[in-house]
């Protein structure tokens, strides 16, 4: 059965999630990338959308304005989360959001903050922009439009948005860091097996 998180997300909804768990999101989701993080954290400008218990997506969408003045989500996919590492801890602290969604892992600072402040990071599989767009029911608002289409703060209502794979949990675990250790170990073992097949040099 699908595990669905609903906004506003409470600490008890996520504190038992483990890295590798698969969840879906129903409710409010906002996009925020490099410049948005910087603006919220450094300038202290507060968007009118309340992010307490909310979910943030590292993504720059392609949106289309319809004749009735509403926006349509054409394409939306995750961008590399590591770019937001510098500001994520502070961003989550000031907004009170509980779920960060992106691509790839995040670093030590965010992992520590996720444990202390109780939030999780999850991966939406990259390159699946049409699936993601069709899970957006409605674009409710756009704030910070002055930052341009990819960087603006798009406020969306989503239904069973996912799959979202938990990559940082509230216990201090980081899936990508664990995997990296494992990959490096296997890499050395596998290369050793390959070397005897590479005797092309004559001497």
């Amino acid at each position: 059965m699908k595990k669905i998180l609903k906004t506003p997300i409470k600490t008890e909804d996520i504190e038992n999630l483990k890295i590798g768990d698969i969840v879906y999101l129903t409710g409010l989701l906002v996009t925020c990338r490099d410049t948005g993080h910087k603006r919220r954290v450094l300038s202290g400008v507060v968007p009118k959308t309340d992010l307490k218990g909310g979910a943030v997506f590292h993504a720059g969408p392609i949106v289309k304005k319809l004749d009735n003045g509403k926006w349509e989500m054409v394409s939306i996919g995750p961008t590399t989360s590591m770019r937001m590492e510098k500001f994520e801890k502070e961003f989550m602290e000031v907004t009170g959001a509980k779920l960060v969604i992106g691509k790839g892992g995040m670093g030590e600072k965010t992992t520590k903050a996720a444990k202390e402040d109780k939030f999780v990071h999850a991966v939406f599989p990259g390159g699946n922009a049409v699936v993601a767009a069709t899970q957006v029911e409605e674009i409710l608002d756009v704030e910070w439009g002055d930052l341009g289409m990819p960087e603006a703060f798009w406020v969306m209502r989503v239904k069973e948005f996912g799959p979202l794979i938990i990559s940082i949990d509230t216990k201090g675990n980081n899936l990508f860091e664990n995997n990296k250790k494992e990959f490096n170990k296997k890499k050395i073992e596998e290369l050793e097996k390959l070397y005897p097949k590479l005797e092309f040099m004559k001497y």
Partner: protein
Amino acid sequence: MTLNQDFVKKVVAFIDIVAKVLPDDVVKRLEELRQNEKTEIAKEIYSCMFDNIEKAKELNRPICQDTGVIQFYLKVGTKFPLIDELEPLLKESVLIATNSVPLRHNAVETFKEKNTNNNVGLHVPYIEYDLIPNSDKLELTVYMAGGGCSLPGRATVLMPSAGYHGAVDFVANTMVDWGINACPPLVIGVGFGTCVASSAKLAKKASLRAVGSSNPDPQVAQLEKDLAKTLDNIGIGPQGLSGSSSVMCVNIENMARHPSAFGVGVSFGCWAHRRGTIVFDKDLNTEILTHKGYEI
């Protein structure tokens, strides 16, 4: 309609197909890799990928929001009637396709650091020519080079004493350190040359060869298989979240090298490997080689 207009119209239509439909060889390999996965995470990601492939067709939308920098690789006959006008015609095609597909705006002028907002800029779209003597045909390969899979590409020149061991170390290290965020399972193109430029160019050429094809030299073809197995056993899996395989293929292109230099390059393609090849004859009749059942 003039020959020029006809050509532009057909190139635009082909860019549209390449943005929205993966080539047959890629889909076939993804289906095979999907069957081998055992964990819930890997299976779920493959389901999402195939759902996305179908929805992109159904809703007529680009498979991935990053439609890349448009790159053209041409095998052009010296007697192809439009040989003198190819560059302006290909640029025009990209301008039109940017609005009609639509494509994301992905050309940023360097130093000015300004997005041109139309996918055309200095040497963009990127065009590479191979001349085919005494032919009146054009074989055009379109590739959408996304940011995620362009990022990990590397080339280096090793001491010959490091040789083939050094080369496979270089490929494996690059994949583990940088390839994980490039949306695996990956297409891996490896080039063996002399300098950085020749090795990188061969690596790119290798990454554009069909998945499942082999280098004509049996020794090299064997290394393609062996290296693919090595990389698969590292177990990067879809999206770097671990799994039974890491790559869709390892393709190698090689050339003779200077005795004192051992160049190696590696070029990556993501799972949404948007590559297409179309052949034009002198009257601009077309045949699409990569997407069966598609005509323009």
